[in-house]
């Protein structure tokens, strides 16, 4: 009976087992191998080299890395700033309202982020809705020409990534036992102290998930920069795409990918580690 069970179980696991070994482990191992190969015209040879990794520290490429990190950092910080109070605030509302706001953030999660960005183009473009509104209110005299600027890219990043933060925080905050906060207040903690000592620590797991879900994609979301930044902002994502699709330099693209994974891995690792300590 038990042996039969075990055979069925093994058969059930097998498809994912094989699929993951071939199509997840395979490509990743291949990427690692590829990153040590030598470029040769449009192809590459098997000769081992560290040149690809050395190239990353080349001024231009390294600057791109820093630029990506900066944008991801700024975006993640902004998403925390806007998303955490949003998720927490919505979760603490009476159920009817809380569910409304949750659904309202689920929809963008499901809608293609590209499509959602189109609206910002209409709003941000020169003489677009933003300019018209600002001029009508007398705040500015001339069109701001906000589109294709760095802040426009940041707004786009926040906009696309906010639902991830909202939902992560909301999920944890929803289960928050409010009597704990009341207990803290009762025991003499002020509002801010009660937040810092009870609410924040208890919702921290949600915040951390949110950061991971925001930071990882923000390193790779090159299309936001290209749509709202007009290719002025070159990110690591665009660099990988360029090396792969136009320069046909697979080994270098692989090395860049390995570096990017290490970077995001380190950031996530740090967050997870703190989580365990908490």
């Amino acid at each position, binding site marked *: 009976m038990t042996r039969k069970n075990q055979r069925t179980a093994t058969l059930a696991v097998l498809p994912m087992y094989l699929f993951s070994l071939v199509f997840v482990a395979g490509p*990743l191992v291949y990427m690692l191998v590829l990153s040590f190969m030598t470029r040769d015209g449009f192809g590459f040879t098997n000769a081992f080299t560290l040149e690809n990794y050395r190239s990353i520290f080349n001024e231009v490429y390294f600057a791109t890395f820093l630029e990506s990190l900066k944008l991801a950092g700024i975006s993640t910080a902004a998403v925390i700033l806007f998303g955490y109070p949003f998720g927490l605030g919505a979760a603490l509302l009476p159920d009817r309202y809380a569910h409304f706001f949750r659904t309202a953030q689920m929809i963008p999660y499901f809608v293609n982020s590209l499509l959602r960005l189109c609206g910002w183009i209409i709003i941000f473009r020169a003489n677009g809705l933003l300019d018209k509104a600002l001029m009508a209110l007398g705040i500015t005299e001339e069109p701001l020409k906000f589109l294709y600027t760095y802040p426009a890219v940041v707004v786009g990043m926040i906009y696309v990534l906010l639902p991830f933060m909202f939902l992560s925080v909301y999920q944890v905050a929803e289960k928050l036992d409010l009597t704990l906060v009341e207990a803290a207040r009762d025991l003499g903690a002020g509002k801010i102290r009660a937040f810092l000592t009870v609410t924040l620590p208890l919702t921290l797991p949600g915040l951390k998930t949110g950061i991971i879900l925001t930071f990882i994609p923000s390193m790779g979301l090159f299309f936001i920069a290209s749509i709202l930044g007009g290719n002025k902002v070159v990110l690591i994502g665009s660099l990988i795409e360029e090396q792969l699709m136009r320069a046909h330099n697979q080994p270098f693209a692989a090395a860049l990918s390995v570096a990017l994974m290490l970077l995001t891995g380190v950031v996530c690792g740090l967050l997870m580690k703190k989580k365990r300590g908490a």
Partner: protein
Amino acid sequence: MKKLRKRALIYPIVMTVLTYLPILVVAVYSFNESKLSSKWDGFSLKWYAELFRDDSILEALGNSVFLGVTSSVLAAVIATSAALGMAKSKLPLRHWVEKLALLPLIIPEIVLGMVFLAFFSLLGLPFGMLTLIIAHTAFCIPYIYTEVAAALENLDLSAVEAARDLGAGRLTAFFTVTLPMLSPAVISGMFLSFAMSFDDVIISIFVTGVSVNTLPIKVYTQIKTGLSPKINALCTIMLAVSVLCLAIAGIIKKIHRKYS
């Protein structure tokens, strides 16, 4: 316990308005007679008409739907059966493979796209629908697996035992009790992965061939060259479809919550 203070509503409302503002703008402008988005020339449905005359967009839509459905169904079958068997199987390294399967969840999309491109060209696979399906299935599996594994953990095993005790064979118990009890998780996982597949630009750009376009790829290439009211119309339709999907999923969940 949770009391409503009016002031607490302000911030969530502002954020929600900002969330929907661009979507609303797109929807409004999709009905604009004028080709220029800087002025309003009156209500018109002509961009929608034009959209449905554009074969390349219809084809891209078809591809996207086919891709989304195929990869989420494939992922659902693979991930659900694996989640069910994981506890009892004795395959070597199975817990490592479990982590491996979840890896696409935390790898930047750009890296996934890159490694798939390189790996598929190594294998000599023809770029197109096949490679798209493999790549999308790979990143859909984690969504369904995590949902189903979590549901399995909360599953009341005594209900399955009760079924066996009341005369159900292994298969009968599985199909009449285990699977129906897991189905909300499987379905919501499938919806999530369909949305992810339908949304994906980055990975798709790398693994698609010259002949197969998905809707996001089409939109991306068009936006890069400039926005057209046609794209606005397309966005509006896709938004409507997404809201509809979510509404259906919501109804399914509500019905399930009623008896769980």
